[in-house]
């Protein structure tokens, strides 16, 4: 009885009118956490962490680069997850979540590529090499663009939701295939022999700084996504009574 009640409570948040105020309440907390964690992470990374023996000060870009790269890949998986949930359970909110996540994922992807290029110039002597990781990250960015473009191009939201969900799932199936094919292509071409995996044992403060920054990226993603979800919910539910009440209340506050 108790467990079924709890299950009921969790699914309750799939209803837009329940989730809308919850998102509004949670978002500022995540935003505050993101700011605090970023400050701590940057302090750890730029002040406390020692200078790298081989790379000098340049290595410090990893405190932004690595969390962004992690996040960009993870967000795509979450997007695909919500798309699958939406297609299977037919919940409108899942599609909204996956569409709200996509821009953040694309931004993190771009940040990872950009900071990677800035790191690559002094370290490898080139802004870009056709390394497997770089190339698959670039293709991931294109997958994000495709998803965003498709969901924005279709006017009927119901169709846009489902079409986006399918392309997200097709992309998710293809991500490992793309990664391994690019990896193999890279080794065949004998490109610039760069090894990203051969990381020298990392100082504890470096690792701590990176992890804190990763958590900051998580908090940022949650905050931004929740904020982005709210107007999307209002727009889609504009014909319902509760949205009218919300708009009246928030309009009256001004």
């Amino acid at each position: 009885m108790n467990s079924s009640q709890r299950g009921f409570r969790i699914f309750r948040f799939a209803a837009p009118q329940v989730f809308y105020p919850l998102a509004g309440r949670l978002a500022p907390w995540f935003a505050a956490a993101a700011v605090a964690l970023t400050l701590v992470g940057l302090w750890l990374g730029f002040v406390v962490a020692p200078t790298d023996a081989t790379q000098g000060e340049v290595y410090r870009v990893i405190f932004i680069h690595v969390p962004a790269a992690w996040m960009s890949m993870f967000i795509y998986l979450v997007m695909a997850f919500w798309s699958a949930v939406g297609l299977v359970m037919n919940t409108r909110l899942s599609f909204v979540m996956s569409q709200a996540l996509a821009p953040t994922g694309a931004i993190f992807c771009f940040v990872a590529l950009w900071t990677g290029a800035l790191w690559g110039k002094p370290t490898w002597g080139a802004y870009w090499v056709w390394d497997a990781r770089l190339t698959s990250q670039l293709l991931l960015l294109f997958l994000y663009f495709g998803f965003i473009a498709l969901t924005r191009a279709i006017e009927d939201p119901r169709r846009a939701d489902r079409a986006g969900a399918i392309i997200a799932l097709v992309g998710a199936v293809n991500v490992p295939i793309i990664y391994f094919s690019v990896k193999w292509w890279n080794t065949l071409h004998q490109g610039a022999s760069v090894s990203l995996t051969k990381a020298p044992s990392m100082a504890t403060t470096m690792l701590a700084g990176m992890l804190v920054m990763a958590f900051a990226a998580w908090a940022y993603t949650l905050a931004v996504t929740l904020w982005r979800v709210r107007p999307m919910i209002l727009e889609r539910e504009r014909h319902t009574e509760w949205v009218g009440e919300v708009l009246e209340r928030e309009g009256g506050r001004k």
Partner: protein
Amino acid sequence: MLNTFFAVLRRDLLLAWRGRADVLVTLAFFVIVVCLFPFGVGAEPNQLRAIAPGVLWVAALLACLLSLHRLFAQDHVDGTLEQLLLSSEPAVLWVLAKVLAFWLTTGLPVVLVAPGLALLLDLEQGALPTLALSLALGTPILALLGAVGAALTLGVRGGGMLLALLILPLFVPVLIFGAGAVEAEASGTGAAAHLLLLGGGLAGALALAPLACAAALRISTD
């Protein structure tokens, strides 16, 4: 059930035959794109030989991409697609038939013409069968993946560009193994591994893509 498959296949092939010009345009596009490269990079034979597999494969990929809109657009406009979706026959079956007809009319001509074009780029003659085989294995994958994209962008504004954005990243593995097979054969390391991977990709795409395509068509005609 197979009756449906063959009926749709026969109908699409007949339609393609009646509109032969469209099919020839795709082929002409492929030939012209390949012929543009010597003008762009210079007619130095060694250089042309080095880029030949990649050029031929990219041109085949673009030819496939640009003809994909034909796959469902006409049937969508005249309502055939809805009737097919309403029928009791499994959608996967006739989707497969349509993709097969599409491949026979756009992919197969490219496969047949490519070895001849490869001679223009001075590709080693020993690698020509591999080129044809890699295209024969790879272009059906392009058609299957492309069908999903074509179904999703059906009737969407800016559909052509959108289609390219959606599916070109997904084409990358096929391009890598397809061009890689020809390159490996030309350099003497043997193309077996590449061709096997392409074959595996084709088997996977045959199993999964029609399902995704049928679902996408249902969404698009909703």
